[in-house]
């Protein structure tokens, strides 16, 4: 998808803010519609899933990722290529278990919360960025990988970092490889 160059730096700023502001308006609207934090979280995850199933095609078309041979490689690509491409950040990756199917993405910066200082009153269990979990889950599913994706830590909830946990659920079949995110 080619885009003409922005003529002025102000446009860049407006453009960058558009998604973040729209996301904020969406979360605010969902908080109005649903009383329970769990319901908002679930809804954000569901919407993210829908986006992820389509975003993966955009990603595969625009990136030049080759074949992946391990969950570790896939997670690296999510962090270093996908996050970079779409959000301009590069979370660091850690592997959490010896069977090498549980990983964490540690987000040092998070554009989605640029205008959020703290969670709204009475919303202490809100996973503000839960859309991201749904997006990752939906994208992985489109390349035939089942995974649980949740926030393990969240700066907005008072944790020291923001950490997304990815647990790959199926055993990887090494013989029959196909392109993965």
């Amino acid at each position, binding site marked *: 998808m080619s885009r003409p160059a922005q003529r002025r730096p102000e446009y860049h700023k407006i*453009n960058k803010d558009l998604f973040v502001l729209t996301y904020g308006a969406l979360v605010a*609207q969902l908080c109005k*519609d649903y009383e329970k934090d769990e319901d908002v979280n679930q809804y954000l995850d569901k919407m993210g899933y*829908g986006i992820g199933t389509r975003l993966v095609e*955009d990603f595969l078309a625009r990136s030049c990722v080759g074949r992946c041979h391990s969950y570790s490689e896939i997670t690296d690509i999510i962090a270093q290529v996908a996050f970079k491409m*779409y959000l301009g950040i590069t979370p660091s990756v850690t592997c959490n278990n010896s069977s090498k199917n549980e990983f964490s993405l540690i987000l040092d910066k998070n554009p989605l919360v640029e205008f959020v200082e703290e969670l709204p009153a009475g919303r202490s269990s809100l996973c503000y960025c839960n859309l991201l979990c749904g997006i990752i889950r939906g994208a992985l599913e489109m390349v035939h990988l089942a995974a649980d994706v949740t926030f393990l830590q969240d700066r907005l909830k008072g944790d020291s970092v923001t950490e997304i946990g990815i647990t790959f659920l199926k055993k990887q079949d090494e013989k029959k490889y196909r392109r993965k995110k």
Partner: protein
Amino acid sequence: MVDTVLFEFLHTEMVAELWAHDPGPGVSAGLRGEEAGATKGQKMSLSVLEGMGFRVGQALGERLPREMLAFREELDVLKFLCKDLWVAVFQKQMDSLRTNHQGTYVLQDNSFPLLLPMASGLQYLEEAPKFLAFTCGLLRGALCTLGIESVVTASVAALPVCKFQVVIPKS
């Protein structure tokens, strides 16, 4: 830098989800109030999307550099929306702007980016208004920040051409 395509994907998902008449799997039911029939549900969803667009439009308006806000005339504001704001948000200019010089403006986009992925021609014409509600709010919100109260509606004769009508009541 946040990629522009993310906004388009999010917008499409919002239109799809906010339109749903059922509360969705596993979430508490009956909080949406959309049981009262299709027309009411439709109106509520359109106004929800428009309201969200309005909030975002206001916030975007606040981010504009100060010198852009020194407009002499109402028409200059509309020209600004058609050129600068539209380029910033949709990477293209509005294709035409017409006015009766009495507070009514018609802004036409011949290839509106949020309609482009859908279809062209008459297919899905009924669905088109859902994809325009947010943007109507966006325009109304930006105008509001620039000090102008307005009513913004949109119409589609054939995708992806759409017209935004801005009516500014005379005081």
